[in-house]
């Protein structure tokens, strides 16, 4: 699969402050990639470089083959939901979307604006001035403008930050719809959200990439599972004897941990059968770890 984003040795310095150091990253087309990291990790700076807002101090990057530093090269290539960017005042919502649609050279800006408003569930606010919208509404309008013209790459910087649960759910549903058609890069501090949405994760810390891999590899979903044991003695020897099993152990009295290779469904099914045949009662089976556990552990390891 050809890369949507290619970054090589990218660095960014603001005066004496080194915001990004030697970033190299490949994001394949069609991926939904989550940017993860604590505050100040450099996620928004990386977004800024990908969108051409910022000039790199060193290194190179290509967005679907285009160099963001070349004027106008990102037109029709990407759309972006910038973090904390205010909608331009004095425009009506429809006026703003028509303006963006016109700049995207869409043949019927009004129709595109109407469609985008309907997608974010705000068809009734088209006549309102942008600066009279609530934070949540403004965020959804900003998201609506990313859908204009169906660009192949969408960058979303903290799309659900500051939204109430219902609005955040609307946004997540929209991202899920977008995911089927485009490459998406999304940053968020809501790791559960990223785990649900993304199939690739890039963990950043102190301006560097700490890890960049498939979400399932990150959480171990494709390499480990756990079973919550309610009653009975776990036959560790039988479970370990399975050809796919690499490690089986009791993490504590009630949790069986299994590390494996190959298809998860095969070994999970056979393990469940073994437990059932030995009258071991269990209540839950889950693959991998929670993303926040994985992130914290990786960060701890990286900082050690």
């Amino acid at each position, binding site marked *: 699969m050809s890369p949507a984003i290619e970054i090589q040795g990218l660095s960014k310095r603001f005066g004496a402050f080194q915001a990004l150091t030697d970033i190299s990253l490949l994001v394949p087309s069609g991926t939904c990639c989550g940017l993860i990291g604590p505050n100040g990790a450099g996620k928004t700076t990386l977004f800024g470089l990908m*969108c051409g*807002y*910022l*000039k790199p101090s060193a290194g190179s990057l290509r967005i679907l083959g285009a160099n963001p530093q070349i004027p106008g090269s990102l*037109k029709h290539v990407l759309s972006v939901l910038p973090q904390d960017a205010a*909608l331009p005042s004095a425009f009506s919502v429809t*006026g703003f979307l028509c*303006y*963006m649609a016109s700049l995207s050279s869409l043949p019927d800006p009004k129709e595109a604006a109407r469609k985008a408003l309907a997608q974010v569930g705000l068809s009734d606010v088209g006549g309102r001035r942008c600066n009279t919208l609530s934070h949540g509404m403004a965020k959804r309008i900003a998201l609506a403008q990313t859908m204009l013209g169906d660009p192949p790459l969408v960058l979303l910087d903290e799309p659900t930050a500051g939204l109430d649960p219902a609005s955040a759910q609307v946004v997540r549903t929209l991202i899920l719809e977008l995911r089927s058609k485009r490459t998406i890069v999304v940053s968020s501090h809501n790791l559960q959200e990223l785990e649900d949405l993304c199939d690739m994760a890039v963990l950043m810390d102190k301006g560097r990439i700490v890890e960049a891999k498939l979400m399932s590899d990150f959480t171990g979903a494709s390499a480990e599972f756990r079973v919550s044991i309610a009653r009975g003695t776990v036959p560790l020897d039988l479970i370990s004897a399975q050809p796919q099993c690499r490690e089986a152990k009791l993490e504590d009295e009630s949790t069986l941990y299994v590390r494996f290779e190959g298809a998860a469904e095969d070994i999970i099914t056979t393990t469940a059968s073994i437990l059932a045949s030995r009258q071991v009662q269990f209540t839950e089976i889950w693959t991998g770890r929670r993303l926040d556990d994985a992130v914290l552990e990786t960060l701890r390891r990286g900082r050690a």
Partner: protein
Amino acid sequence: MGFMRDIVTIWRAELGRLSKNGRIIAASLLWVFAVAILSRVLHRLVEGGEVAVGPLSDEQAQQFLSSSIGALLEATGFSRATIVSMFVHGAPLNFPFFFSAVMFFLPLLCALIGFDQIAGEIPTRSLRFIVVRTSRASLILGAFLARWTVVVGLAFITVVGILVSLKSGGFPVGIGFIARWGVAMFGTAVLASGTWSALTALCSTVAWTGPTALFLNLFALLALRTLRSIGTSALLNGEAALVEGAHASLFAYFRYLTPSQFEPYLMSPKAIEFITGLAGTVAFGVVFMLLANIAFARRDL
């Protein structure tokens, strides 16, 4: 083609925004109010016949210029040929003073209307929605053209106001006078406002906030005025010194470092003066816009 279409799109959108911007509306109303007062004064003076000096013959006009009031008229920056031409066409005495006052305040109007075109959008980050859809050059040109359009509109009102006040005061404003001086005034105001709007665009692209851009713009205007004052004063001293056989000061050339040195030539009937004025004014505008474009292309948003 796409570049031009983007410029037009941005120009239209920005004009729409400006028409709803309270500061722009207030500045425009203030300008129109000042023009109305100025026109009223002009009307009264013309009506009272206190300022009629012509029409004069070419020779009479030349003689008039050698009087003490002639020196004052030349201090407005208009060339001798321009002032003679004004009085040969029967322009009232205050006409060059009034128009030079308009030209004096025009850079301030441009600054007030356009200082935040880029810098004002940096803290809110609202430019970020636009710069992924078009080139920065289209953005700055579209924003500049929208502000220039507003100033040109106000310049038109100003020129019409001056002509109407002359006519209503009983001055014989005919087709010939309008064709010569109305068009010259409007053309001069259009070109000059383009240059000053370009300076405002430049200041707005290098600053991080609107107020900083305004301060920078006012500082630049002050610096350019100072350069012209130094140059003019050195020229006058140099002329006196030349009589005594000394060399002209290098400072005299400072006056060519500001667009306001060239603007009055745009009204001149002499081709060489007009071409000098046109080339100087346009060159400054182009240089300011090129610098603005370079600064904007290189900066982080």
